[in-house]
């Protein structure tokens, strides 16, 4: 007897959102440093996922929504840099204490932001993806389009850089 794959319907989308909202939000927040913008990016990722629902397969939906979210984060940051360059964004949220400051303290949160912002994009992605997603290195590699070993080396490099600034121990 064969079982038919469950279609990716609205209920499946919402269940996925409930499950992934927090990890996706946390990764997005480390790109935008602004709570509402991070949530908006995550929601936009789900809207785009919904638009592609006919192509979505249940086994690849989670990597797909991570890939969409990370792409949106990178594009949004480029957009902000462009606006800053032309003097449109004078008061970027990364200059203001945010939700992370409540947990870390204002000064520590500022140090962390500076350290994360200083990471190369590839290392930052690998670090945030592996730290927040709970995905295996293999799945993370599929999302980032690199070899499995590359994910580990980029993550380790990112942790080393952070450690150099913040004296972090990778658990």
């Amino acid at each position: 007897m064969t079982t038919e794959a469950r279609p990716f319907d609205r209920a499946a989308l919402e269940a996925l959102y409930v499950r992934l909202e927090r990890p996706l939000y946390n990764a997005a927040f480390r790109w935008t440093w602004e709570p509402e913008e991070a949530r908006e990016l995550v929601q936009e990722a789900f809207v785009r996922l919904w638009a592609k629902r006919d192509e979505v397969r249940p086994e690849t939906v989670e990597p797909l929504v991570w890939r969409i979210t990370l792409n949106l984060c990178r594009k949004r940051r480029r957009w902000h840099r462009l606006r800053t360059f032309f003097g449109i964004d004078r008061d970027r949220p990364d200059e203001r204490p945010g939700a992370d400051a409540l947990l870390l303290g204002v000064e520590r949160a500022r140090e962390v932001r500076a350290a994360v912002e200083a990471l190369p994009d590839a290392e930052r992605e690998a670090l945030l993806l592996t730290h927040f997603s709970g995905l295996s290195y293999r799945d993370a590699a599929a999302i980032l389009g690199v070899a499995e070993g590359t994910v580990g080396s980029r993550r380790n490099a990112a942790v080393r850089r952070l450690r150099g600034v913040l004296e972090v121990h990778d658990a």
Partner: protein
Amino acid sequence: MPELDDILPSLTPPPGGLHALRERLDHRRRRAVWWVGLVPLGAAALALALLWPRAEVLSLPEDPVLLTAVPSEPVTVPAEVAASVAVARVPVEGLVWYRVGSTLPPAEPSR
């Protein structure tokens, strides 16, 4: 020494995320429905624009050949008006047009 979890702690997203997502999806669907209504209208307008009969613009030669008496031509001038009518043969893009006009001077306007 702090752990990575202490540096990148898991933050709670702003509340109401699922509700906001539902609104976005519904709004998108409403917007899509609105656009769908315009599709047949646009298609009809396009079809009309493509199929609407347009007058063909032909460039006439500068010096058409004036016919005086060519029996083989399909256009003939009746004998009673032959003195006051001229026929010009105008070959244009594979067709032959005939320009027929009066040779009499324009009449003086009546007072």
